């Protein structure tokens, strides 16, 4: 292939001439060290290239080599449990090769080409197949059965298919097509900037339970839905993302550390192999793919990491899995866009971000969804996307936040004040919202409890009333409130402290099943209703010992949730008692 020549270097942006014949978004190798780059602008024979590695030492006159392939990822068995950088280079293997620091110009296969997998055909010779059909499976980890699919665009009859141990490069089947015989390996390549096609998009109907009370009960996200978590630094975005990666009821998790801290990735790497999935009892790592392009790693690769991640997620979705993707933080990705755009001297929009920021964000979230997959068996898959946003100063008028809110359906708004008071998760219950309750209502009524929504709405009403009453207390003092109003304050406080507040680092509190969430909230609302019914005196309510038991519900282990159920009657009794005492005194 022909060779270009560098004429300009400015940080991660390199311009080369003599680049005729190259295409937009093609990958090139820059300089003698062959740094990986991608063409992002073409003008006559000049190409602007964003380079995914540090460009120091690259100078005018050095060569640029074309590869003719767009930026692509390798898809096949071996993805799960991997840790990649933004352009799918395996960080563990890089460490083996170059030591503790990432040096430049390293190229490595993303999927181990030597490892042999047990391939089990599910189709036989003579079967007719189309693109997307599953022809065989590989037990990738104890949790994930990897489905080997016919590459898109291939259609015909199976000539040959073998059951044996294969590497990802070996031919596992041959398909006779109109264009001749096609050899199928377990590894496929896919350009990251194009979403993988689906047969049909469907509306989300199942909740994605996360084990986080404030989320599942009040602001649920659906399988195939999108959510965004904006908040100032230290408000708990990363902890929420980690919690979701740990406990969300997804079959595959793709976690993208996009321009954030190195230690946070280490944390995941240390914890996930030890933590057990509450459903299967297997280590969480067995269903996880990690992408780490930390803040100090090259900024252009950070831009790519989001696409690399979602392409991997789409691949598992196509197998029929429910995938959850977390991106922490999409603001860093947007900043990478901004930096490259600035170097290209494009016309800046709001806050210096390029004018196409909004469409880029929308395109990304559109790749989420519940779908009918390609292939003849009509299987369903889903990708749920949860993106953190880090607006400057926590200011929600930031263009990244605003453009994100335009497309996502769930908004968990993190408040600095709550975080300062160590109320975690610091999700503000008054401004957050979810547009999914209608979608998932039927499921919840059927599978959890019929009065779930009623209880939830009662609780939310109490919280809203509390907010108004607090305002009054601030102006005129607590003494001005009626007994009824003070009971509302008590109930709302219990909801906040004993239900919404959830400590991610407490071994029991960290995860609450939806059943337990329901029972907890039901107990609290039972308390409120009993106090209303008996017209209980607020002072006496506050001194009830039962409150302590309510406060400790969150520490009740999942196996013992009967205890919480039993609490309801105890609560009624206890509240009833103070009412009788009062009557006696009155009489």
């Amino acid at each position: 292939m022909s060779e270009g020549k560098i004429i300009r270097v400015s940080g991660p942006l390199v311009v080369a001439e003599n680049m005729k014949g190259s295409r937009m978004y093609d990958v090139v190798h820059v300089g003698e060290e062959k740094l990986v780059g991608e063409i992002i602008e073409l003008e006559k024979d000049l190409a602007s290239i964003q380079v995914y590695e540090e460009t120091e030492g690259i100078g005018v006159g050095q060569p640029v080599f074309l590869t003719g392939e767009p930026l692509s990822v390798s898809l096949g068995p071996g993805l799960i449990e991997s840790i990649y950088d933004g352009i799918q280079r395996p960080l563990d293997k890089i460490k083996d090769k170059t030591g503790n620091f990432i040096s430049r110009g390293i190229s490595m296969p993303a999927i181990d080409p030597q490892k042999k997998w047990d391939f089990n055909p599910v189709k036989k010779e003579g079967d007719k197949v189309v693109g997307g059909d599953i022809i065989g499976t590989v037990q990738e980890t104890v949790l994930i059965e990897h489905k080997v699919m016919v590459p898109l665009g291939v259609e015909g009859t199976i000539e040959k298919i073998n059951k044996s141990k294969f590497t990802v490069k070996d031919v596992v089947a041959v398909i006779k097509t109109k264009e001749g015989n096609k050899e199928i390996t377990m590894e496929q390549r896919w350009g990251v900037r194009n979403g993988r096609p689906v047969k049909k998009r469907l509306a989300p109907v199942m909740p994605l339970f996360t084990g986080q009370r404030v989320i599942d009960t009040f602001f649920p996200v659906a399988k195939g839905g999108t959510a965004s978590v904006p908040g100032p630094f230290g408000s708990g975005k990363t902890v929420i993302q980690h919690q979701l990666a740990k406990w969300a009821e997804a079959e595959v998790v793709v976690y993208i550390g996009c321009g954030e801290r190195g230690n946070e990735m280490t944390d995941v790497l240390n914890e996930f192999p030890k933590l057990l999935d509450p459903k299967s009892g297997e280590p969480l790592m067995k269903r996880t793919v990690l992408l780490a392009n930390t803040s100090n790693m090259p900024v252009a690769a950070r831009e790519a990491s989001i696409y690399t991640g979602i392409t991997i997620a789409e691949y598992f979705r196509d197998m029929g899995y429910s995938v959850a993707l977390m991106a922490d933080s999409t603001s860093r990705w947007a900043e990478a866009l901004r930096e490259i755009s600035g170097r290209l001297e494009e016309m800046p929009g709001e806050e210096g971000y390029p004018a196409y920021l909004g469409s880029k964000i929308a395109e990304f979230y559109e790749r989420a969804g519940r779908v009918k997959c390609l292939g003849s068996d009509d299987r369903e898959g889903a990708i749920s996307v949860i993106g953190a946003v880090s607006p400057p100063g926590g200011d929600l008028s930031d263009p990244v936040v605003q453009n994100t809110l335009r497309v996502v359906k769930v908004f968990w708004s993190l408040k600095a004040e709550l975080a300062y008071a160590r109320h975690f998760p610091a999700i503000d219950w008054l401004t957050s919202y979810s547009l999914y309750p209608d979608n998932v209502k039927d499921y919840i009524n059927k599978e959890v409890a019929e009065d779930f929504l009623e209880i939830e709405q009662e609780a939310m009403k109490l919280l809203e009333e509390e907010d108004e009453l607090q305002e009054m207390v601030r102006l005129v003092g607590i003494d001005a409130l009626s007994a009824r109003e003070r009971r509302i304050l008590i109930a709302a406080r219990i909801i906040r402290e004993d239900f919404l507040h959830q400590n991610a680092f407490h071994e029991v509190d960290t995860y609450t099943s939806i059943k337990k969430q329901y029972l907890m909230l039901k107990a609290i609302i039972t308390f409120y209703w009993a106090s209303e019914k008996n017209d209980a005196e607020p002072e006496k309510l506050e001194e009830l010992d039962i409150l302590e038991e309510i406060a400790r519900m969150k520490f009740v282990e999942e196996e013992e949730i009967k205890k919480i159920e039993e609490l309801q009657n105890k609560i009624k009794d206890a509240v009833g008692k103070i009412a009788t005492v009062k009557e006696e005194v009155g009489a």
Partner: protein
Amino acid sequence: MRVEYQAVSDISGPLLFVEGVSGVSYGELCTIKLPDGEERTGKVLEVHRDRAMVQVFEGTRGIDIPKSTVIFQGRTIQLDLSPDILGRVFDGMGRIIDEGPAILPEKRRDINGEPINPYAREYPNEFIQTGISTIDGLNPLVRGQKLPFFSGSGLPHNKAAAQIVRQAKVLGSEESFAVVFAAMGITFEEAEFFRNDFEQTGALERVVMFLNLADDPAIERISTPRAALTAAEYLAFDLEMHVLVIITDMTNYCEALREISAARKEVPGRRGYPGYLYTDLSTIYERAGRIKDNKGSITMMPVLSMPEDDKTHPIPDLTGYITEGQIIFSRSLERKGISPPIDVLPSLSRLKDKGIGKDKTREDHADLYNQLYAAYSRGKEAEELSVILGEAALSDMDKKYLEFMNRFESEYVSQGEYENRSVEETLDLGWKLLSVFPKKELKRIRDEYLDKYFAKFGGKEEEEKEEEQTEEKKTKEKRDKQGKEKKAEKDKEKKDKQEQEKDKDKKTRDEKDKKKKRSKKTKKKESESENKPEKK
């Protein structure tokens, strides 16, 4: 390859443009020779065909277009490294500025370093005892963490940083440590303060200093933290030492960066700082950490002064997004006479959870700080309320919180510059302060720890307290019926309070005396017995 050019075409702020060059590469180091023989150092920020843009570290004043020459060095800016750098003083570019001999380099490294592979990192989890309660108790620092001070001009952040250098130690270990000190744009006086402090504690021969003072070239501040961290990486990961890096003041660094960005006519981000400030800062802060199978560590405490004490200013804001927490200094606490004036509510250490607990500090540590935070925060709310409505409008519980808040600030937050509290002392102090509350109120603490510690530090008072409460209750009931005894009660409260204050004064006086004379154990006992009359 060294090439010399005599073709400076134009100069703009700290930038120099050289024409007719070839073979120049991005990031390359160059030397600018002035007609009078003076030499300056520059770095290539951009090459475009035969034109190179050079950032001159010492500034462009006096450079003359026709007569100056530029020599491209064919390499990036590097630092000479050997164990002999300990005890030495360098300028912001890594050139020796003390009287000592040249360094015979064992290693020579690019000051930009390379990113640590996230897979190679070891999660920081070794508790560092700083002897400062607000840090050890509430925002624990661990080895390999980056924990900045967000301060303001005129606040005692330097004193606190020096106190940490003096007192910091990892419990039960005596490994080799070093301090790397990088100064950017601070005054000579401030730099001397640190130097003297290092000298007095005998740490000087373990300190490497990189000084760029207020009157040194501003653009050199761009390289100062990088040179310092290159030295730190060498000490930590080659020599396996525990390195504490103090960088002060990052605000001056950011201003230098802004100056260059403006000279390049880049599209400015917020407040004129470049859009890549986050990425740039992260290439500094993320150099802290630990590495698997390596004993060394880099713990970083950058100091920055928040312009107008505004935490949302881009410098503290972007720093907070990268570092693992922040320690915030507050002017209002300073005015109250609380020192160090650390505002614990917005302060945070994100790595605390893995550095504390059983076998590290104490089992009850996590629950305890959660409770202290919650209580202090509620105390603050009560204070706000009482400012608007008067203390009388507070509920009894809120009054307790208010009292707690005041004691917390004066006894827990406030401590002497030379007072080195062990983490045990800090934790015990927390329990002691919490003992004003009924047990039921301490919801953030597990029963087992409540059982173990609550009585121990408020012990006998618990029952009495409850009696007191029921008494109060009775009076309240009466009040509700008759609404007359209010005044008497208030008087009583006032009296109680006066008495308490008297006692407090006496106690602090006594304690001061005791500190001089007696051992800790007897002190604890006595102050317990002393508490009794106060409550009656």
